[in-house]
């Protein structure tokens, strides 16, 4: 699998000099095409800052980010905007959809922004929504849709323009658990099926059920990387790294803060 997204020693500081706060501390990671990664951690762990940098919304203080072969750090504001609309698919916690556009129009909006709204594009938008079970809600406005339906429209919008990377910000915060599972599962299926690279930021470890890799951040650092299915399932079942450690007293966990190698990070049962 080719690497779709790569960061190298990315650091983000807020403020200057002595009052500077380290939000992200020398994070190196990579996501391959067809891979769905969960970025987890408590609030203040730096995962949202990381997401903002991956989305070309925020510049790293140091280090570099590549999406495909493109280095985000060297881009000007205008180039980033154009890059975002073409190469990145995005869903947000809330206020995802433009309230005065119908479900279909919201999805087509990405194609309009990219000036690729042709017949095929329209068909693709419609097809995605049908695929997500919204065939009878195509012309509904967001306020006529349930929270889950709105999230599904957002998924379609994040994928319709065939982006390199799909970023998902806390998909579960405005949904009940069952719907949240459905939404994340749908996302995972589509990311695998369409061979995109997906990064989901969540504080809810139960949502790792459908991902291929879990990256935990604490205090701006990557503290753990889990990519073994069985271990991810364990995480998901018991709901936290701390608990996992309690259950796994045999091998003390060792962390490579930067550039974590999967083999170093694996938990042994």
């Amino acid at each position, binding site marked *: 699998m080719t690497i779709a997204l790569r960061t190298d020693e990315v650091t983000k500081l807020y403020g200057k000099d002595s009052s500077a706060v380290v939000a992200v501390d020398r994070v190196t990671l990579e996501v391959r095409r067809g891979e769905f990664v969960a970025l987890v951690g408590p609030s203040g762990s730096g995962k*949202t*800052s990381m*997401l*903002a940098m991956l*989305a070309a*919304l*925020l510049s790293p203080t140091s280090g570099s980010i590549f999406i495909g072969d493109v280095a985000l750090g060297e881009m000007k504001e*205008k180039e980033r*905007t*154009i890059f*975002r*609309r*073409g190469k*990145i698919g*995005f869903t*947000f*916690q*809330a*206020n*995802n959809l*433009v*309230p*005065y*556009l119908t479900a279909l*129009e919201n999805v087509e*909006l*990405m194609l*309009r*922004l*990219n000036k690729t709204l042709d017949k095929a594009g329209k068909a693709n938008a419609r097809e995605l929504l049908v695929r997500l079970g919204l065939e009878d809600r195509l012309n509904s*406005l967001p306020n006529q849709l349930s929270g889950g339906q709105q999230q599904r429209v957002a998924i379609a*919008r994040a994928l319709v323009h065939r982006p390199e990377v799909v970023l998902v*910000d806390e998909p579960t915060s405005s949904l009940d658990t069952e719907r949240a599972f459905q939404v994340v599962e749908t996302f995972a299926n589509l990311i695998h099926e369409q061979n995109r690279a997906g990064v989901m930021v969540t504080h809810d470890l139960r949502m790792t059920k459908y991902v291929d890799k879990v990256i935990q951040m604490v205090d701006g650092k990557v503290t753990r990387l889990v990519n073994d299915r069985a271990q991810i399932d364990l995480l998901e079942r018991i709901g936290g790294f701390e608990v996992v450690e309690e259950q796994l007293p045999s091998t003390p966990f060792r962390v490579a803060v930067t550039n974590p190698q999967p083999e170093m990070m694996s938990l042994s049962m």
Partner: protein
Amino acid sequence: MSFYLALKEIWRLRGRYLLFSLVIALITILVLFIAALAGGLANANKQLIEKLDAEMLIYQDNVDLQPTSSRLGQSKLSDMRRIEGVEDVGPLGLATATFVFSDGRSAIDISLVGVEPGKPGDPPLLAGPGLRSKRHNDVVIDQDLASRASLSLGDRFIIKSIQGTEEEFYELSVVGITDSRQYFFLPSVFIPLRTWSEVRPQGESESAKAEIVFNIAAVKLQDPQLFDLVAQRMDHFVDGIEVADKQTAILALPGYTAQQSTLNTQQIFTVLIGVLVVGGFFQIQTLQKVAQIGVLKAIGSSSSMVALAILLQIILVTVIGVGIGSLGTMLLVLGMPSQIPILFTGSTVISAFFLLLFIGPIGGLVSIRLALKIDPLTAIGLSS
């Protein structure tokens, strides 16, 4: 893209935007109505002077350019005519009399304007042969009086004038109709100066004078470009006079400046209120949309795209509002009784109309600035 977003939002929220357009429409009606009233009042005050076929007006010296205080005699006219650069000079006598209906309807006050037939001041005609020196009871009336008193060519009518302490009645005959030429809010009746001198209201001592006295003189120049030069000569060669151009004369009309500045102030304040109302509305609209605009920017809309969409909405809402308001004002004006001086087609109304079209974009500047400043990071709950 901006057009698409702007129009979609307006259409989906058409109730809200229409309501707001109606607010702008009401402001428009108020501003245009005040402008029309200012125009109408100005017109009713200055029309006679403004339409004079002359460039220069001569007053008696030291009367502050007040026509009714000014007194000039026939001998001065001959002096003026001899000045180089003067084409012709006509006397203007200004007085007030009352038009009396024979059927008992309530009387109409009129401006009785004494002119010398064929000289500056004698109005151009829409109909009829006009004034002739020897026909003393012939008059030219303006359209305003013709319509209000239902008079036409050849009709006779009676005016009432106070001589000494007595009411006197004179019968006059319409030999010409000119366009509307109100003076001091009253419709005008043009009458040969000699007759004017007899019928105008006057105290008994005045009527004893031998020389015909009038108020001001209207001077037509051979070359209007040489106004200053002729004015200098006039000052130099004719004693006891003051020279003014038409604009100065109009500004000096009793109450003219005070009245116009009052109405202009009202108009300016209403426009300012309009700017603030539009500004407030779109500011609240934009504040409500901060999260949504953040998302739009995060998925790749540029700031200029979002700001342009808001600007387009502001322009559209303003144009619709001003359009409805203008139409409303027109209907309102049509329904007004003719005595209320309203001029809907005057330059004041037209400039007010264009000014109103700018209240939206000017008021909306703050919200456009706000929209430009919204950081796409707000979409994921961060701020820069």
